C-alpha cells in the first residue's frame, strides 16, 4: 500500500540554491531559513520516504510559450537539471519513478485532469533550489515532478490546485505497490519581480496564508487569483501550489515545523505537516 506520510510547503528561488552552493548556511541572513530546512530534514529522514511528489512551476526553462502546458507530469526514469541561462549547478540528476508516474497519469486523467505527460523533464529552481536541503546533496529519493502554469494567464485557480491535491491523494491511495510518499507544494511566498511595486513582500499575508493553510484551507481555495496577486504580487501567485500539498494531506494535519523569513525580494516560507 502506498501512503502519504508527510507534506512540505516551501518557497523556491534561485537565490536559495545559490546561497546553498556558496555555503552560506551560517550567514546571519540565511541561517534562519537553513536551520529551518535542517529541522524539517531530520523529521523527513525519520519518515523514511521513498517518493516525493513535487507540485511546482517551470520558469520558462523546460517549456516555452510555443507549447505551454497548464499541467505537466514527469514520468521518466530520471529528470535532468535545466540550464536557466546562467549555467547548471553542481547537482546530480533526479531519479524518477516510472511506475508511479504512469499510474498518476492514469489516475489524474480518470479524475478529469488533462496533464501533458513528459518522458523527458528537465527541472529548474522550482524543484532544485530547496531540494538538496531536504533530500541531501545526493538527491537519492525519487521524484515525480508536477508542473503547473502560474506564469502565462489564464492560470488555474486556487480551487483547481486544491482539487489537484485531492487527485494526488487518490492516486497514492490506489497505487498497488508500497510507497511512502511526501507531497510538496512549492512557490512564493509573496514577491513582485517587476513594476512599480518591485521588491514588495507582504509578510502579514505570508503568515496569515501559512496559518490558514493549516487551519482553514477551504478559505484559501475560495480566494480568487486577483486577491492573491493584489496581496502577494503577480509572481507571488505561485503560492497557490501549496494548496495542492494541503489537499493531498487530507482533512486534519499536525504542524511539525514552520519557518518564515524575508530578507530579499521574496518571502521565504517553510511548513512541514504530518497527517
Amino acid at each position, binding site marked *: 500500500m502506498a501512503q502519504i506520510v508527510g507534506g512540505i510547503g516551501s518557497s523556491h528561488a534561485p537565490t536559495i540554491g545559490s546561497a546553498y552552493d556558496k555555503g552560506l548556511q551560517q550567514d546571519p541572513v540565511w541561517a534562519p531559513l537553513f536551520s529551518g530546512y535542517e529541522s524539517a530534514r531530520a523529521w523527513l529522514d525519520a519518515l523514511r520516504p521513498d517518493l516525493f511528489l513535487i507540485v511546482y512551476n517551470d*520558469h*520558462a*526553462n523546460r517549456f*516555452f*510559450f*510555443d507549447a505551454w502546458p497548464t499541467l505537466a507530469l514527469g514520468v521518466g526514469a530520471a529528470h535532468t537539471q*535545466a*540550464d*536557466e*541561462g*546562467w*549555467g547548471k549547478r553542481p547537482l546530480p540528476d533526479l531519479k524518477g519513478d516510472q511506475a508511479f508516474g504512469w499510474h498518476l497519469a492514469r489516475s489524474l486523467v480518470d479524475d478529469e485532469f488533462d496533464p501533458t505527460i513528459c518522458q523527458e523533464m528537465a527541472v529548474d529552481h522550482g524543484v532544485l533550489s530547496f531540494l538538496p536541503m531536504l533530500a541531501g546533496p545526493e538527491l537519492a529519493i525519487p521524484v515525480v515532478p508536477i508542473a503547473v502554469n502560474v*506564469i*502565462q*494567464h*489564464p492560470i488555474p485557480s486556487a480551487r483547481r490546485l486544491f482539487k489537484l491535491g485531492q487527485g494526488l491523494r487518490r492516486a497514492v491511495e490506489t497505487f498497488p505497490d508500497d510507497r511512502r510518499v511526501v507531497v510538496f507544494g512549492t512557490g512564493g511566498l509573496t514577491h*513582485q*519581480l*517587476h*513594476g*512599480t*511595486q*518591485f*521588491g514588495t513582500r507582504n509578510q502579514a499575508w505570508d503568515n496569515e496564508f501559512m496559518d490558514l493553510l493549516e487551519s482553514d484551507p477551504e478559505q484559501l481555495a475560495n480566494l480568487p487569483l*486577483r486577491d492573491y*496577486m*493584489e496581496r502577494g*504580487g*503577480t*509572481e507571488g501567485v505561485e503560492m497557490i501550489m501549496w494548496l495542492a500539498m494541503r489537499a493531498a494531506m487530507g482533512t486534519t494535519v499536525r504542524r511539525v515545523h514552520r519557518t518564515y523569513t524575508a530578507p530579499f*525580494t521574496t518571502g521565504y516560507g517553510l511548513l512541514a505537516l504530518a497527517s
Partner: protein
Amino acid sequence: MEDIVSGALLFTGERSARGYRINKMAMSFTAPESRARFKADEEAYMQAFGLTAAEKALVRQRDWKAMLDAGASIYLLLKIGACTGHALPHIGAHTAGRID
C-alpha cells in the same frame, strides 16, 4: 480582462503573443553556446530571431521596462540579463522606473 495588478503587468496570452520574438530569443539562452553567440554578435543574433527594428533597439538600449511593455516575460528578461550582466535587482528596479 484588466491586465494591470498593483502596478504590475499581468502576463496574459495576448501579451505573450506580442512579446513572442523577444521571449523566444531569450529562451534560446538556456543553451550556453547560444549565450556565447549572442555575446559575440548581438545584432546578427537578434536578426536571426526576427526581432523588429523597434525590439532590437530596446535590447540594444537594455531598456528592460520597455521590453516588458513590449510583451517580454520577466523570467525571460532575466535570461537576457544573464547575457548582458544585469541581474534581478537592476532589471526589477528599472521596470519600476527607479533607475534609468
